[in-house]
């Protein structure tokens, strides 16, 4: 029996951002993006009342951003660190959204890999995970 709870233990984030200008801030940028992706994958969702269109969770109580305890125990950040001379004369590339983009999908894939349950709608709430587990269980 299960509770549908997901804990992200380890995220490996590898990015090609051309030349690394400041390793510390580049790394911080990736860690922040990974955490945004944890929210995207697991907790953040807007609710509209279907009859009135009113936003039900326009507050930090019910629009759930990750807390410190939701931060993955380990975030491994790696850079290719190869100046991209076609990009510009410094060989640098942007690092804003890239850490968010693949990470939610990676978390959903990890859930599927661990349990056989494929959740196709973010965030992976307990309701969705328990439903997917029931479907996967029925198939097995």
């Amino acid at each position, binding site marked *: *029996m*299960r*509770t*549908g*709870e997901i*804990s992200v233990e380890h995220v490996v984030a590898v990015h090609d951002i051309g030349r690394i200008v400041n390793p510390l801030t580049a790394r911080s940028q990736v860690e922040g993006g990974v955490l945004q992706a944890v929210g995207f994958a*697991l*907790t953040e969702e807007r*609710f*509209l*009342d*279907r*009859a009135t269109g*009113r936003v*039900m*969770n326009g507050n930090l*109580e*019910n629009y*759930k951003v*990750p*807390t*410190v*305890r*939701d931060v993955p125990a380990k975030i491994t950040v790696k850079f290719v660190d190869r100046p991209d001379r076609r990009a510009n004369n410094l060989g640098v590339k942007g690092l804003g959204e890239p850490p968010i983009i693949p990470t939610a999908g990676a978390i959903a894939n990890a859930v599927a890999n661990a349990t056989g349950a494929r959740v196709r709608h973010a965030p992976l*709430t*307990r*309701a969705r995970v*328990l*439903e997917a587990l*029931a479907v996967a269980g029925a198939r097995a």
Partner: protein
Amino acid sequence: MNAFSYARPRALADALRMLRTGAASALAGGTDLLGLMKDGLARPDALVDLTGIEGLRGWSHARGKGLRIGALTPLVELETDETLAKTMPILRDSLRDAATLQLRTMGTVGGNLLQRNRCWYFRDEGTVCWLKGGTRCFAVDGENRYHAIIGARECAMVSPSDLVPALIAYDAEISLTGSRGERRMKLADLFVAPHGSQRREHTLRPAELIVEVRVPEAALARKGTYLKAMDRKAWSFALVSVAAAARIDRGVARDVRIVMGGVAPVPWRVLAAEKGLEGSALDDAACTDAAERILSGATPLRDNGYKVTLARELVRRALRSLVS
């Protein structure tokens, strides 16, 4: 927010007198009341700050006479006191994931018992739901992932407190005082599923105050577990919570209590399921069966069926933990 007067009396009698005039509200930690006022859901014309009153803060345990906890005791005290953690460990277990440390520092025991529910239709100033005097509960056909799966009548709110299920699992009583004198009641009787003319989730009378919580000595011999499911790892109200307690006597359970939060408008108990476990070794089959019985009356809404699965599993785990 409306204009209001403010007083901080030193004597309980003065506070009670002030509470009898107009639309006065008692203020303790303010962690719920001030939010209700800012959102236009409470409009007291006077706030009577109770924090200046001596004798309502702190706890004591006289052997053989049970535990007494003053209503103004900050939650953080119940959580951090090492002696209390040995006397009644479930207090710490239930509070650890309640709100945040800041809120537990400001919030009091009495205020926790009397906090209003978190239904987002109730909390929305522009929505006049049944509980606020309207004609219908909007959650029933609306957005109801957080709402009741069992025990609801006209209103689908859920009991939000983490502390309350833990206290009820230890047969807690409360002492109250008001214009009609003092009275005592089971803590469980403070809560009612709103229905008919009872458009409120508490049975507190106007201008009445909770003075203290008492836990009988016999209950302190129980082993207890509190489990809480949230939709993130901290700072969330329970999707489902369960407090389980029993006295384990030569490997079998006596005086079993199972109290759930987040599933019904009141802290949810099914006495027949508890009685069915009397003398049980709490093996997996017995615990699974009890969980099934507790949730057998569930009638989930469109988006909260997951709570039934979750509740069954938490009950099973909590009961199993009493013998492991």
